[in-house]
């Protein structure tokens, strides 16, 4: 990371100054008050670095929002005080999974691996935020507004998701599970067959 280099450089200069420029070492203070040319070069380097970062970030943003080639699996996520509800509009019979988020009663969001999954995120009351730390991603859930994002999980597993936007009393236990299963198992589960998922 660039950050670590910058931090290391400043620390090294600071250490040098502390070791070599202490008053006890009989140094005399410089009378020079500026070095405009050096500073100009330095600003040039900074600007170039900033330009690089801007370009890189814009590229990453682009990638983040690239729409998938295949039609995504759609899940409607609704948040409320203080739990989550996941509906699957593509299921033969509309399916909704919810819970109370008390104790072990956490709802599970089931998604197929290898498929883009489009989450349509909204809230029934205040602002919440869906965060899956494992996926390094979060998105706010607003009332009277739908936020959409697409994610693809590559391997099977189960991870915990949380609410990241403060929403009062039981904000801290507003968790859910996200479970990635193979596409076949997902289809079975969507048909409502036993033995699959949750």
């Amino acid at each position: 990371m660039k950050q670590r280099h910058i931090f290391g450089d400043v620390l090294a200069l600071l250490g040098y100054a502390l070791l070599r420029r202490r008053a006890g070492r009989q140094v005399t203070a410089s009378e020079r008050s500026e070095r405009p040319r050096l500073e100009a070069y330095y600003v040039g380097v900074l600007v170039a670095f900033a330009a690089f970062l801007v370009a890189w970030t814009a590229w990453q943003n682009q990638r983040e929002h690239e729409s998938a080639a295949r039609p995504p699996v759609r899940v409607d996520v609704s948040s409320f005080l203080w739990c989550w509800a996941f509906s699957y509009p593509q299921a033969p019979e509309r399916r909704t999974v919810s819970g109370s988020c008390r104790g072990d009663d956490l709802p599970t969001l089931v998604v197929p691996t290898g498929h883009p999954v489009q989450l349509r995120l909204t809230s029934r009351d205040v602002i919440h935020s869906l965060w899956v730390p494992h996926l390094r991603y979060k998105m706010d859930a607003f009332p009277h507004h739908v936020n959409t994002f697409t994610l693809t999980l590559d391997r099977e597993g189960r991870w915990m998701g949380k609410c990241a936007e403060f929403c009062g009393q039981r904000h801290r236990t507003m968790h859910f599970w996200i479970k990635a299963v193979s596409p076949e198992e997902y289809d079975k589960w969507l048909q409502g067959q036993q033995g699959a998922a949750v």
Partner: protein
Amino acid sequence: MTVAPPTEKSDIGGRPVPPSGWLGWVTSTDHKRIGLLTAGTSFVLFVGMGTLALTMRAQLAQPEQELVSSHLYNQLFTIHGSGMIYLVFTPFALGMGVYLVPLQIGAPGIAMARLTLLGYWFYALGAAVMLAGFATPLRAHADGWFSYPPMADSVHSPGTGTDLWIAGVFLATTGTIIMGWTVLRKRTYGMTMLRLPVFSWSMIVSCLMVIGAFPALLAALGLLAVGRADPSMFDQNVWNIGYQHLFWFYGHPVVYVMFFPYLAAVAEVLAVFSGRRFFGYKGTVLSLLVFAALSMSVWGHHMFATGQATNDYYSLTSIALLVPAGVEYFAMVGTILGGRLRLAPPMLFALAFIPQFLIGGLTGIMVGTPVIDYHVTDSYFVVAHLHYVLFAGSAFGLFGAVYFWFPKVTGVMLGHRLGRLRFWLLVLGTNVTFLPMFALGYLGMPRRISSYASFEGFGWLNLLSSIGAAFLAAAMTVFAVNVLWTLRKRTLGSAEKAPDDPWGGHTLEWATSSPPPRLNFTPDHPVPPVTSFAPLLDLRQKQKEETAADRSRP
């Protein structure tokens, strides 16, 4: 204050004798008294808000603890955050400006002194109103310092506490706007713009931001107040997201208002204790102005996760900030590299500021980058980042400034040994408290949770952080003892008297007596010729050259 002999009465314009005691303090139009009142009030609040933070660290030290209820915990972080930002760091910065800027530019007082005093009253009243929330039946406001609707509306946050919070923040912010306006209007004689000391420049820039951005907070609070009267307003997304835009239009510049004056105090300390002129003055002044201008265009980077901000634009402007920030670091590091360093307490704080603030700044670039921000926003990573900026950065600048200007303000020296002890306790406490929070956030601990389950594995990092907080408490105790003891000794007359210029200062405030007289400069202590942004240094160099020339003469 010295009592003026009757012959000098004409100097104060033959006005009636001002009241003495506390009434004299709260009605004085002396900018030094208003400045001290503001700084003193915010310091008392600082201790109070710090105590709230210690309670939170105690609650989080172990998983599944129930030291405080979750409702009380929500009040604690709300008042801690609101208090530190609205009532401590912003007013303290402006208080320093009210005290120092007239002295630094050789003026006898502040422009519009009565208005400045009114600003202080608004601020003090606002603080009292906000804290009064604890005395209401449903207790204080509990929705965080940014209080987004609809969470903060009257349906989801019932009770008078929230109303008092709105009123309190409104009053305190009005007070700071008024103070900012008066500091800005302070014009000088004989001092050109490029001879203003770095600290005075930082105040000008801060006040520009106060005037430009703080009214947006008043608008946001007004919106919230209307919405509390009629909660159906927040059934429209535009008001919810609109509030966030207004809030962060204020919320980003305020960070720099809480940063520039302390950064500039650090710059003055670095130059004085390096025994040389501040390096790259013009670049620094220019970078402050660029910073202020950019600060008003980056607010959306607090809102990436809302899905309703233009990511590319806001990440562009946020990344551009690294250019002026880099220029400031160039100047600070350049100053010490060519200096002759004396490691007195103010210098220790200034030196620690450099790497510690850098951690805050570099992680700031990270959270300003949407791809990283999507993961870490609203997590403990942000808590760590903002505390590195405000505590490891600004607070170190603040304490450096207190040690630096204490002799000037009080006329006595602040104990050096306790100062050093306090410094090391604070460095240790700061880093042990806030460094683990980066890891916690990255591992998935959200902000504003009153407890966490033991299986999540956050236990030992939180414990470490709480142990660090104990060191912070110890450091603050040592500081309080040091200050109170020194002031007590001053009353008894046994404290070490401070000379006019104990550190070999560069700027005009060191040319007058310690503490400065009512009108700052007297015939005994005239304003020296202003030849650059470091007039006293010029004077000393000239004297040195003259004595050298005298000696070379046969």
